[in-house]
């Protein structure tokens, strides 16, 4: 390969980043593979989501008119509940089998572990959402596959998972860990959930983009804040 010296230097300078990305990828791959073999997390999240949707159906009498206004709220409550279930489980597995200590011994930056776990959780939450959305569409006869709504779902999940992964890694160390995570996570995540519900509602009701933008902006701002803060403080959470 006719590569100049400048090219070589650039490759070497890029190498730490490459290593970092590879470490993140390894953590994600480990989670995905473990999940693929056991399928405990996804099946639990999925069945739970469907149950939540069914319960809402009875509780709210979702007739045609109510559906249009309430659907986004029902969707996000479902995602949030299923999300906590997944977050709790994904961290509990690491803690119970001593995997977290193994991960921490790996000679990689701690934040790579955070991003790996967070992206892994995002993948699981995304999978649940991808399955729940069509089921919801069929059960309630609404088209949820709009590009705007999918974007909101992605943005909302990013913020939720970023702060959720951080708090879940704290909650697993507590005596009351299973009850603690939702109590820690919900009040902190409320701005994200609120913005996501409002923005989804805007897309479902075909509102003007001018009305949706403020909520999308709030969602993006909170995503950035949560990812940045979680990235900065994660080291202190896993420190022994």
């Amino acid at each position, binding site marked *: 390969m006719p590569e100049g010296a400048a090219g070589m230097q650039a490759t070497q300078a890029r190498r730490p980043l490459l290593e970092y990305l590879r470490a993140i990828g390894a953590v994600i791959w480990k989670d995905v593979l473990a999940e693929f073999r056991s399928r405990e997390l996804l099946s639990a999240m999925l069945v739970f989501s469907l149950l939540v949707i069914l319960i809402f159906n009875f509780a709210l009498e979702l007739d045609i008119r109510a559906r249009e206004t309430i659907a986004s709220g029902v969707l996000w409550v479902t995602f949030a509940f299923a999300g906590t279930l997944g977050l709790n489980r994904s961290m509990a597995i690491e803690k119970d089998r001593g995997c977290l200590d193994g991960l921490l011994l790996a000679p990689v930056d701690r934040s790579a572990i955070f991003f790996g776990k967070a992206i892994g959780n995002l993948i699981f939450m995304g999978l649940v959402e991808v399955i729940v959305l069509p089921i919801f569409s069929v059960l309630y006869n609404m088209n949820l596959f709009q590009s705007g709504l999918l974007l909101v779902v992605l943005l909302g999940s990013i913020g939720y998972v970023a*702060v959720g992964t*951080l*708090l879940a890694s*704290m*909650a697993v*160390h*507590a*005596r*009351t*860990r299973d009850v*603690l995570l939702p*109590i*820690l996570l919900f*009040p*902190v995540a*409320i*701005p994200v959930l609120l913005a996501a519900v409002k923005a989804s509602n805007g897309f479902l009701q075909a509102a003007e983009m001018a009305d949706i933008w403020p909520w999308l902006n709030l969602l993006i701002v909170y995503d950035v*804040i949560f990812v940045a*803060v*979680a990235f900065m*403080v994660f080291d*202190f*959470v896993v*420190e022994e």
Partner: protein
Amino acid sequence: MQPMPKALKALNLFTSAVFAVALYLVLFYAPREAVMGEVQRVFYFHVAAGWVGALAFLVTAIAGIFVLLRGDHRWDQLALASVEIGVVFTLINIVTGSIWARPVWNTWWTWDPRLVTATVMELIYLAYLMLRQGIEDPDRRARFAAVYGIVGFISVPLTFLSIRIFRTIHPVVVGNNDPTAQGAFDMTTKMRIAFFFGLFTFTFVYVTLLWHRLRLQQFKERIEERKLQALTA
């Protein structure tokens, strides 16, 4: 037992005196509001309590940063003491607001952005206290609480700004008012004096309580030490 330091005794007296003056200003000196009547007087301590809540949570977040950087457990004690006071004052803020809202908005509670964000803030710090209870190792407890105190503080500016960015019926007395707000009024000079004196007083109440709470924590630790000594002796 170590006697109370002179400065703390002086602070006790000063805060009590200032509080008495503040009560006089709020109850007698400030004029009766023309539309709402006497119930408007709740406003002075309502805002002051809200201010102390926000200040206390700010102190917790800053103390949390120092816990993470320095690892000194005295910062952790400060963070805990401040949260406990903040939770009480935020509750006072919400309850006094509710008392005011009953005659003015004709309801104890409404799902308004300001009320919701304030309640969410209160819940975050209750969760903070629960997190502390759940973790036994003091070093880890200090670190986790610091992290949660920092993450949770994101809610405080949102509460403050909520009446300024969302459409709400909660009045903004300091600064520009939203036309949709109900129960707004313009402060006269006398009202303004009572209002700012109230803020000043509550800040001193906060500092005094904080000091006492920190002393209490020190006594608690000393008792633990004595207990250990007695057990090993």
